[in-house]
């Protein structure tokens, strides 16, 4: 039981979540940058899956590449990290599903994950994606430190408190008193 608690504690540790977050973010930045630079190859990779209609392949290649890059950057920076990691998870799920379908259909093609000259895709690729999805889930629930967005908000909150503390008490009392029925939320108190 104690070992389980320790394991649970380690598994849910915030620094582990930070590591996962940075790993996922960096991976997606790398993948996105490459795909942006070689959009044609990426489009071919998408086409090789034979899932997307031909008229949507190119635009999908463009949007996917930039989405990966933006989500990776947001995740690393800790800005809208929940949304970013959610999108990364969704993309990974889509990729995993596409890979699985392609593998099941027996179509031999590269993964197209990082470059257009990958070796033929095997079941390792969707398995790897599943691991990443697990990482994304971990990040979603346990990531809580080194968020640039929170640091900025904390600074803003401090400025707000500074303004609040420099106002006269009498004026504050008349202006900051909660309206009847309006209670402060925990988030307000934290801010």
């Amino acid at each position, binding site marked *: 039981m104690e070992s389980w608690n320790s394991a649970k504690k380690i598994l849910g540790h915030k620094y582990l979540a930070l590591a996962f977050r940075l790993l996922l973010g960096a991976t997606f930045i790398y993948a996105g940058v490459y795909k942006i630079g070689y959009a044609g190859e990426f489009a071919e990779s998408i086409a090789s899956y034979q899932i997307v209609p031909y008229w949507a392949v190119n635009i999908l290649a463009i949007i996917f*590449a930039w989405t990966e890059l933006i989500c990776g950057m947001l995740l690393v920076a800790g800005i809208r990290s929940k*949304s970013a990691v959610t999108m990364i998870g969704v993309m990974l799920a889509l990729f995993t599903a596409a890979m699985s379908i392609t593998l099941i259909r027996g179509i031999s093609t590269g993964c197209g994950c990082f470059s257009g000259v990958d070796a033929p895709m095997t079941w390792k690729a969707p398995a790897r994606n599943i691991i990443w999805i697990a990482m994304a889930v971990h990040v979603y629930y346990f990531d809580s430190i080194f968020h640039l967005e*929170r640091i900025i908000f904390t600074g803003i909150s401090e400025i707000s408190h500074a303004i609040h503390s420099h106002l006269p008490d009498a004026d504050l009392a008349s202006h900051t008193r909660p309206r009847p029925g309006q209670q402060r939320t925990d988030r307000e108190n934290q801010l």
Partner: protein
Amino acid sequence: MTERADKINPPPRGPQTGLEDLEKKAFYLETLLDTSRELADLVQPRQILDRFLLMVMGALGILQGVGAVINTETGHGLVTGRGIPDPALNEISDDIPRISKKYFPERGTSSGSAPRVKVITGDAITGQGLCSAHMQVLILSDLLPGRFSCLLALGERITGEPLGEQDKNVLLNLANILANSLSHAICFMDIQQMNADLLKKNAELEATIEEFGQTRQNLERRFFHIESLLDLNAELRSLINEDELLRLFLLASMGPIGIEKGFVLVYDREDRIAKTAYRGIENGKALHSQVCEMLLYSAFDKTEPKSLANMSFGRFNAPGIFKEAGIDLEPECGFFFVIDLACMGIAAFGPPVSGQSLSSNEMSLMAGQMSGFMAYLEKARAFSMIKKLNEDLTNRNEQLTHTVQELTRAMNRISALEKARAHFKLVVQKKAERAAKASWLDCALILFFAAAIGLLFNFAPQGISIIPESVKSDLPSTSAAQVRKLVDEGATIIVDARPKELYDRKHIRGAINVPLPLFDNLYTVKLGRLDPKRPIIVYGRTISRLYDVELANRLKKHDHEDVRVLPGGIRAWEAEGGQVE
């Protein structure tokens, strides 16, 4: 007197008695007449008594006689006598009260009638105790009944004969004359006394009138002083300007008394402000605060009585202090006054123009004027203070209004800041809430920005076509039956445009594989020597790629005139019964 002596001593009796009686009667009548004449001019009772004794004793030949006029009210009287030694007269004088009580016991019974005369002779007077036993006749008379009485006692005759009836009648008539004369004399004396009293009363009255005149003059002066005091009060009452108050005080206080020079100083010790007024003094100037304090100290030092109580003043006599201060004034009268501990002053006046010293009334007047002046000065100072307080209050009101406006502006600003802060906090809260969980909006925004940036970036030279060119192709397509017919005729070439792994898996028999990525290399080798007019059938497409269309377009670009596409691909070919490898 010689003739009278002869009459008193008649010739001896003889035969001619009738003639003698007549002569005696004539003698007595003449005596009565002489006595009446003698006494008529006399007004002093003592003289009347003396003259009467002389006349009676001479006419009747009597050796001794004594007379007294007695005031029966007081018991005093005067006594005179003839033929009686002075000690005896003195005894009688001392015995007057007893005699009065004895012979005139009835007092205060005034009947207003003529004097009553009673003549007592012979044994009737024996034992009366008056003088000596030699007295033969006693005459009693109430001169003024209840007030004065007269008593006359006569001794024996020289001849030793007793008084006859005729003698007694004469004596009674003489006593009546005496009584009348004494009554007249007493009345005359009363009149004289009354006249003297009247004169004395007149003198007293004149003195009183003179005193009354003096008093009236004093009262008129007092009235004038009071009137001038009232005028001063009336003039000072409406004044609120201290300078004007000082000036009018000097004018109104010096005029009634006729003083030529005057000076008044009011010094505020807190603000060190001096107000002065001069009258009749040349080169009157404003005084420095040090000079004012020196004057005040010098004056207070000489003031009697010394008092620093509020609204008090005292008179001082300090000649020379004004000369030291450069003021041409030698004060005849000076006052040191205290309005309160913060405000003191002195008022000094020179001698009157008349050259006389100030009287006590004038000093009282000046003291009264000082009291009024101090009261109005206090009122003026109070008014000045109220005015100053009002001005201060007005200024403070303006400042307060300004402050209230500032506060209102500040409150508005604070309110705006609070609203902004609340709005800002709400935004931050929303942002924080959004950061705390995934949101569809964020995902949509990420996709939107990714698409926007990607499309913009795709304009770069290495960008790819967003819409595939194959979509816009107008290449002619053909059916599997026609293709089979052409293949059977041997007039066409079939090209498989798919990737090699798909080609290797299955393709139309005789088809040449030219994957698009290798087109440039394979075209020269496999299709470069073909007749441009020979029909070429291209097939091979997936859901994601129209390889056939793209390859056909390229062949078109290499001047192949008859390039056709088999849209159905291998599936249509096999359905038509074509062979595959």
